[in-house]
């Protein structure tokens, strides 16, 4: 029996794969991303008495043909890492379709165990499945499981260990017949591939031939590297394709699918599946819910209500712990300031690092609560309905139902991030819609912009924070859609491409799943604060500190201060002493202000003031906005630093938003203009890189310039019109 075992969980999306994975591994798991892409890489460990099982949760796929990133990731993992066993998680209520993927695993030859998941939903649907019969007909171990309650996991593990021991890593490709039209061609192509010894370390020759007929993009690319082989394969495949279309009116792909489903049907018909009642007459619970939730009139209203409720929930629940974290960092800054001697080092630690990173970490509780809500919507199946309902609207603006996902991930529901959002746009097959989505997704209220909104709404719209946030989110969607429409009817014109997706049945998310998922996302945010934001905070602190005031000016302040101190010692009345203390404070503030103005950042900020003044931004805001191009989180932290540099002692200053509200230079209109600008201006640096990778550097540069222009025009409009109305 092997001591160390590597297995992979695979299956259709929504087959309960991740739930089963959670049940198997508990909290002993690690989530990361595959290098360069956003497909989640989820790994975990199960320890039994004598075996340590490493489990890999592969992304959900419908097939093993490279239609999307997920399929490619799953396939390449299997081919390159060669796990000892693959557990194919099947949704028992939808067995026929789920077995389609299983057949492809068998054709690949990989050792397989079937987990017949969600068997508890079968009686309600009037279906019964004989798993023993399925097992003997397919000559595979089949284990009944209920992922959400952890039922069957021991048996599954036992089956996996046995299968691994029996197969010893041997791959045994299943040979399906694809009929008189395709079989000879497949044999010939396979023979050619075998002769060329092409990819023989990864795939069986017949499997490559099949994928070639299925027009698999990656296989095409790989074959193109071997021109001699490719010429023969291309000739054979195009001849058979033409022949099939002429005689059968079908593409080879459809024929292949037909034979696979034929094989599945031949197994299921032999007493594996039986329906006890006529399921066609039953109205499914999910369908009943859908009649209301996706109703033409009620559906959209309920959707808006749910989003609004999500904000209220987030703010009501998140506010309290947010206060705790804020006061913790205020205490930390105060304590550190009193422990360290005055000077550059103290300024770096207190103003640069604690101010910068603390400002970002302060939002962790709020973001966790928001993720909790979003994860719930995702896992319950409602998110797919949102995409379905919004497709109608999106089409008008030259986008796609699938553009909803990049939009939502980017922050369509505040709290996302444009980087995975931009990368999620990969699933869009049409280059034009994809480009329009890439360029407009960064308008969404991502998790890094949210703190700016929270800060400003708390300061200037304290009684209607949720409403303002809600309206900002709607504006983000409105702006993104309008810009998409403009782009799609000017620089990126073109017809729309088709889309298809599954609407999973409604399910109650499991507590463990929601918690784990929420924590993963929150942890990613915290990690970012500890790395990227920390580095940028230090850089910006340096920009705001150097070059320092020339020596004679510092001396000038110092002599003035000494004079005041001497005067203070010689006065007798309390009133005069208080007046002198005020003058001292004013002097200190003036020194800090002059120092900041003298620094690189100050000069940049002041230089831009002539233009930015149109939108109501002063030089301090400009500094923060410039920093925000690096990462949006930096806006709040920089504002915090810029203003805290002006404070004499960090500990007796009230919360930052209260200070802003008290600042006479600020008013609600200026705050509104700033929020609109932050919402729409240049994407952050990481997003720009992602856009460049997905489209080109030309489009990435376009997004920076174009988005900033859009943002500036809107902000000026808000500020100028707002002041006129006032």
């Amino acid at each position, binding site marked *: 029996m092997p001591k160390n075992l590597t297995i992979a969980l695979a299956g259709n999306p929504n087959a309960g794969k991740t739930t089963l994975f959670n049940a198997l591994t508990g909290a002993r798991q690690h989530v990361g991303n595959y290098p360069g892409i956003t497909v989640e890489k989820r790994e975990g460990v199960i320890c039994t008495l004598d075996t340590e099982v490493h489990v890999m949760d592969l992304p959900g796929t419908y097939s093993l043909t490279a239609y999307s990133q997920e399929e490619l990731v799953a396939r390449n993992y299997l081919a390159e890492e060669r796990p000892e066993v693959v557990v194919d998680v099947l949704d028992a209520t939808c067995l026929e379709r789920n077995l389609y993927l299983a057949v492809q695993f068998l054709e690949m030859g990989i050792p397989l165990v079937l987990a017949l998941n969600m068997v508890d939903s079968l009686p309600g649907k009037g279906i019964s499945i004989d798993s023993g019969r399925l097992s003997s007909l397919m000559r595979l171990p089949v284990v009944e499981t209920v992922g959400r309650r952890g039922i069957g996991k021991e048996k599954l593990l036992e089956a996996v260990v046995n299968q691994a021991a029996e197969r010893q890593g041997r791959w045994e490709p299943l040979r399906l017949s694809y009929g008189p039209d395709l079989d000879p061609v497949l044999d010939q192509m396979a023979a050619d591939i075998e002769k060329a010894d092409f990819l023989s370390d990864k795939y069986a020759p017949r499997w490559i031939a099949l994928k070639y007929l299925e027009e698999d993009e990656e296989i095409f690319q790989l074959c193109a590297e071997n021109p001699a082989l490719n010429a023969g394969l291309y000739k054979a495949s195009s001849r058979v394709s033409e022949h099939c*279309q002429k005689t059968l009116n079908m593409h080879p*792909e*459809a024929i292949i699918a037909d034979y696979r489903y034929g094989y599945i049907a031949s197994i299921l018909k032999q007493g594996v599946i039986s329906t006890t009642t006529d399921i066609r007459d039953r109205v499914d619970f999910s369908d009943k819910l859908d009649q209301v939730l*996706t109703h033409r009139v009620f559906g959209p209203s309920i959707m808006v209500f749910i989003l609004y409720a999500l904000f209220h929930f987030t703010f009501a629940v998140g506010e309290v712990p947010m206060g705790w974290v804020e006061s913790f960092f205020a205490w930390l800054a105060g304590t550190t300031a009193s422990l360290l001697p005055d000077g550059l080092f103290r300024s770096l630690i207190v103003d640069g690092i604690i101010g910068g990173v603390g400002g970002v970490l302060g939002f962790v509780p709020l973001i966790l609560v928001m993720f909790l809500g979003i994860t719930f919507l995702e896992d319950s199946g409602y998110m797919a309905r949102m995409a379905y309902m919004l497709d109608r609207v999106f089409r008008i603006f030259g986008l796609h139902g699938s553009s909803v996902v990049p939009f939502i991930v980017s922050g369509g529901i505040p709290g996302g991030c444009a980087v995975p959002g931009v990368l999620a746009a990969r699933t869009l097959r049409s280059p034009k819609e994809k480009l329009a989505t890439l360029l407009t997704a960064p308008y969404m209220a991502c998790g890094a912009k949210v703190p700016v909104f929270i800060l400003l709404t708390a300061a200037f719209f304290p009684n209607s924070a949720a409403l303002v946030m809600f309206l900002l989110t709607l504006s983000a969607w409105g702006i993104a859609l309008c810009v998409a429409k403009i782009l799609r009817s000017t620089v990126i014109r073109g017809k729309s491409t088709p889309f298809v997706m599954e609407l999973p049945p409604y399910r109650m998310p499991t507590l463990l799943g929601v918690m784990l998922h929420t924590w993963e996302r929150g942890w990613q945010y915290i990690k970012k604060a500890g790395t990227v934001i920390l580095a940028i905070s230090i850089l910006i602190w340096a920009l705001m500190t150097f070059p320092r005031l020339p020596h004679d000016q510092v001396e000038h302040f110092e002599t003035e201060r000494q004079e005041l101190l001497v005067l203070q010692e010689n006065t007798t009345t309390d009133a005069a002493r208080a007046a002198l203390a005020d003058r001292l404070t004013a002097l200190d503030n003036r020194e800090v202000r002059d120092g900041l103005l003298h620094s690189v950042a100050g000069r940049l900020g002041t230089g831009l003031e002539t233009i930015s003044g149109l939108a109501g931004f002063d030089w301090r805001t400009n500094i923060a906005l410039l920093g925000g191009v690096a990462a949006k989180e930096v806006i709040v932290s920089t504002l915090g630093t810029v203003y805290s540099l002006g404070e004499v002692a960090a500990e007796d200053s009230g919360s930052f938003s209260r200070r802003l509200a008290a600042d006479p230079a600020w008013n609600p209109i200026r705050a509104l203009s700033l929020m609109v600008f932050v919402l729409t201006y240049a994407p952050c640096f990481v997003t720009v890189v992602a856009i460049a990778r997905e489209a080109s550097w030309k489009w990435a540069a376009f997004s920076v310039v174009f988005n900033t222009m859009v943002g500036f025009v809107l902000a000026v409009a808000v500020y100028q019109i707002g002041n006129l109305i006032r």
Partner: protein
Amino acid sequence: MKKNCWCLRKKLSERNSLATMKSGQKGKVVSVCSRSRMAGRLAAMGITPGVDVEVLSSSGDGPLVVVVRGARMCLCRNMADKVQVDPT
């Protein structure tokens, strides 16, 4: 590769595409007349010739929801246009 679909019965079957079916109507898929990759994707999601479909919702020019092989699929009208159906 082969970008254009070549459908011999296009004229005849266009009238019976999935897109023309009303909510609640049932039928059997006759052929999927689409670019090869799309047809493959649809097949992987269960929409192949010979399969029973039921339209759950279809209105205006928005996407359709159909039940195929026990799963609810949402597909856009352009795509539904390419799926020929024999209504029952």
